[in-house]
């Protein structure tokens, strides 16, 4: 905290045209993003490649938030666990969510894997996928939605996501590069294609972590020790 207070005034002022980010750094990103990684969407390149370490930190923050909810809210004894959610009585809600859920899921996968070319990426696609699972949880009830995505899967999903992203960094380290330096991946492709592939793996890791964490928070909140409460 004290360190932060000491270091704070050293940062450039808000909107300072002389700062590094407004000067040569942004121009370098805009000029070289496509050449470096064969990816038209500059936002994706910056998030997953140039600032990959930042994004890894973000993923860990999301994961830790999910862990905090787990420790604060989850009931360990399954006998005591009641569910807030039961299946809806409305046939309109039932049918509409049944039609919408697979469409949202396919669109979420498209957003994750098409993040190189259009807006989107791991965070957006993962949140969409988690949203579709929450939609099913809310409309079909907790019991009926377990076969699509079991509540025992959500924490492993989050862990797997963080490990995919962090493990990618370790692979590049072992191959002789810096941490998360994708063009050192030992696959024998051109450098820009390697970075393209590295971004894809990072996005998939982010998506796993976001899906697992969001569904985990929701399940921890909705599974109480009290069963179905009063309306």
């Amino acid at each position: 905290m004290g360190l932060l207070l000491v270091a704070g005034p050293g940062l450039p002022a808000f909107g300072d045209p002389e700062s590094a980010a407004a000067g040569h750094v942004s121009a370098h990103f805009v000029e070289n993003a496509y050449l470096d990684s064969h990816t038209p969407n500059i936002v994706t390149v910056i998030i997953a490649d140039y600032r990959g370490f930042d994004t890894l930190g973000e993923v860990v923050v999301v994961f830790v938030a999910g862990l905090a909810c787990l420790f604060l809210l989850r009931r360990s004894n399954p006998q005591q666990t009641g569910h807030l959610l039961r299946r809806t009585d409305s046939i309109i809600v039932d049918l509409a969510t049944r039609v919408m859920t697979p469409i949202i899921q396919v669109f979420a996968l498209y957003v994750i894997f098409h993040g190189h070319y259009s807006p989107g990426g791991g965070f957006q696609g993962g949140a969409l996928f988690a949203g579709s699972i929450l939609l099913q949880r809310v409309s079909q009830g907790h019991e009926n939605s377990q076969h699509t995505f079991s509540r025992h899967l959500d924490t492993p999903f989050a862990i797997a996501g963080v490990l995919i992203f962090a493990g990618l960094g370790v692979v590049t380290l072992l191959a002789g590069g810096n941490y998360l330096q994708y063009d050192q991946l030992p696959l024998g492709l051109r450098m820009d294609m390697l970075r393209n592939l590295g971004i894809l793996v990072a996005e998939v890791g982010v998506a796993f972590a976001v899906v697992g964490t969001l569904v985990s928070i929701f399940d921890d909140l909705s599974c109480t020790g009290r069963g179905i409460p009063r309306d």
Partner: protein
Amino acid sequence: MNGPITALFFLLALIAAIAALKVKDLLAVAVILTAFGFFVALLYTALGAIDVGFNEAVLGAGVTGVLFVVAIHHTQRRSID
């Protein structure tokens, strides 16, 4: 660039934010907050930050609303203050 549209979304987001502070029924507030998230997402998109707008549309206008509704079930529905 597109001043009127940006101003309109900004105004709508402002109205939704003030309404969320004034309404006492927490379930209604959760719905108003998702509307706020949606207007902010439109604002980001109008300003050219499409990736950020996408994120806000999915998280602010979608997932957080559901989380709020479930969290309200753990407490009372009406705000006291």
